[in-house]
């Protein structure tokens, strides 16, 4: 049975439909052009530690059909449940979307889809300290003509190796959004990452 939730105090998107459509467009751009940084309009009252881009992505992508796992605390959970209506997953492996503000759960433990249905996989939203194009990781693969450079401050230790293992599972695997403030970039599972 449903239990009443703690009183939500903060607003979500000012215009739930238009703001979500704008953010969806940015997410689409980010996935189509891995490593290119997009800016999104952040919901003004997202409770910390939720960053603007991560909060906007969750409001855009999560709904009643997508269990979400997050490590951002009860205020963020209540806010997200109220605005997105999504169930909160107890285990990372049960989630369709995950938000990590701290150390993320191992990629190998997340839903990776099946050979028949590779789309039934998780998308990880990872909050990092900063994102900048120009140097840093060397990214290549579909959506990238030769190479994109993306500098990511605050990615978890050992991430490059973990990503390589994730990439090797294609067509299965996890897709990734990196968020810093109101900026986001994406690494679909098809992207190859060389630390730089």
């Amino acid at each position: 049975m449903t239990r009443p939730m703690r009183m939500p105090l903060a607003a979500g998107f000012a215009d739930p439909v238009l703001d979500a459509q704008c953010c969806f467009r940015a997410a689409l751009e980010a996935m189509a052009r891995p490593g290119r940084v997009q800016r999104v309009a952040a919901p003004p009252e997202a409770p910390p530690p939720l960053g603007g881009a991560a909060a906007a992505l969750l409001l855009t992508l999560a709904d009643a059909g997508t269990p979400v796992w997050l490590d951002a605390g009860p205020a963020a959970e209540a806010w997200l449940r109220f605005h997105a209506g999504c169930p909160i997953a107890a285990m990372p492996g049960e989630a369709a979307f995950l938000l990590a503000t701290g150390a993320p759960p191992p990629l190998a433990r997340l839903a990776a889809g099946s050979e028949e249905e590779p789309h039934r996989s998780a998308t990880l939203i990872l909050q990092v300290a900063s994102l900048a194009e120009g140097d840093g990781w060397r990214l290549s693969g579909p959506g990238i003509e030769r190479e994109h450079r993306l500098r990511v401050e605050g990615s978890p230790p050992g991430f490059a190796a973990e990503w390589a293992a994730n990439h090797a599972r294609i067509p299965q695997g996890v897709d990734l959004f990196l968020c810093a403030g109101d900026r986001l970039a994406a690494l679909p599972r098809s992207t190859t990452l060389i630390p730089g």
Partner: protein
Amino acid sequence: MSEATGTGPGGDGQQGLAGDPARRRWMGVLARASAAEIAARLDGLPPLPAHRRLRAPETGLVMLRGRQGGDGQPFNLGEMTVTRCSVTLPDGATGHAYVAGRDRRQAELAAVLDALLQDPARRPALLAAVIEPLAEAQAARAARQAARAAATRVQFFTMATMR
């Protein structure tokens, strides 16, 4: 759906009204009234206080369910449009509305009134001026329909028995 974790029950000071039959009733009455009908009842009352949109009016769907055979296991019948809105008042009171259809203005008015009606000081006047007249109009419509149905009820009479 899996049960949410980390969102403890209540604690918002509103629990006295959670599931309160009076609150359920006014929410049901407002859901059945058009924006114009609600606005007409507010005419002549002091203006509503300014409110902040916690969740702006948004139209979505509710999946309606039937029961197989009429009383068996549930099945999904089809969806219906619904518009919801949540607001807060300057005093911190929160109001919610879910109303069938796509009328954003109705949803917002219903949410504001839900917030106001939770205030015991304001409640009696608002019930008298807004909710009761709307409820009476709805009951009158239902009664007229029932009377029309009653007029089409067949009064059987038995013919003389034939041999």
